């Protein structure tokens, strides 16, 4: 049994955001970098590079990063194109994910609709998937949906429902929730898919305590099965983090 004398160092890098724009933003583009592009919640989490040292073993790395380029298409719609990697030497190739996507949003208040395409591959590029996706979320209207439950309870949530069409049709639902209280932030996001008549789910969460400015102590974890391999995986990391991102 390996000694559990491990040290973790999380370096969190995130950048994003542009100053408030004038009403005519057609033609302007914005780069956002975060934990993943899978959702607004994931994008606003810091990108993470975790270095793990286990006694008697080399230094391992765990990388989660996503980047998006966002631009206007019309007054009520915009496009995002992104790349992401869930990789590092500490993850076996089968649990690594590389992806690219393009997604078009159309605001139809009271809902927001997104359609797009996503390519995903495992670390060895042995398993590929190319899916078309369509999903929607209500902009608001229920307590805590997209905004704090109340001035005293800084909890908010957002649901998405959608379907991916590739090697079959795969309906899915995603629910994310954030809680902020003073220097403490916590977030969780769960996605559940219906694949060939059986359910798959993947949940990830993080808890951060702000030390000063953009420096945090952060614990993050994930568990479940995610595309394209649907292999069960789980990990937990703890360390110091640094973030430069607009808060949502």
């Amino acid at each position, binding site marked *: 049994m390996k000694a559990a004398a491990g040290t973790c160092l999380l370096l969190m890098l995130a950048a994003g955001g542009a100053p*408030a724009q004038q*009403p005519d933003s057609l033609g302007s583009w914005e780069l956002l970098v975060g934990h993943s592009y899978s959702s607004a919640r994931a994008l606003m989490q810091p990108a993470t590079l975790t270095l793990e040292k286990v006694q008697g073993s080399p230094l391992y790395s765990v990388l989660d990063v996503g980047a998006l380029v966002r631009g206007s298409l019309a007054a009520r719609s915009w496009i995002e194109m992104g790349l992401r990697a869930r990789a590092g030497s500490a993850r076996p190739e089968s649990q690594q994910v590389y992806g690219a996507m393009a997604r078009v949003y159309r*605001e139809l208040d009271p809902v*927001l609709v997104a359609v797009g395409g996503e390519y995903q591959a495992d670390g060895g590029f042995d398993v590929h998937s190319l899916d078309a996706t369509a999903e929607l979320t209500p902009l608001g209207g229920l307590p805590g949906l*997209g*905004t704090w439950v109340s*001035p005293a309870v800084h909890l908010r949530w957002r649901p998405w429902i959608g379907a991916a069409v590739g090697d079959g049709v795969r309906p899915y639902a995603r629910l994310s929730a954030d809680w902020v209280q003073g220097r403490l932030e916590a977030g969780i996001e769960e996605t559940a898919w219906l694949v060939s008549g059986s359910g798959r789910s993947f949940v990830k969460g993080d808890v951060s305590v702000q030390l000063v400015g953009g420096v945090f102590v952060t614990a993050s974890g994930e568990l479940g099965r995610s595309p394209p391999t649907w292999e069960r995986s789980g990990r937990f990391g703890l360390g110091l983090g640094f973030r430069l991102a607009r808060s949502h």
Partner: protein
Amino acid sequence: MRRKDGRGHSWTDGGVERAVIRIVRRLSPGFARKRITKKTRLHQDLGWDEYYALRVVKPIRATLHEELEDRAVLDLRTVGDLVACVWNAMEVPA
């Protein structure tokens, strides 16, 4: 100083500010009127997530007769940014 909205109605900058704050307040139940000013941050102070901010588009169209682009709304940081966004969209009288 006055400007005209999309239907030709005349507004002062103070009038636009009051109208925008009323809209923001309706979208932020529980927040006291005095807590919402031009300096109020939409995300940190009111807790709006990225997409919730899009809810301002419809009431601004209905009240101030201005059509804000979604992408511009996504980048707003404060109530003051929103006021400026609407004010800058209005027509400056000749």
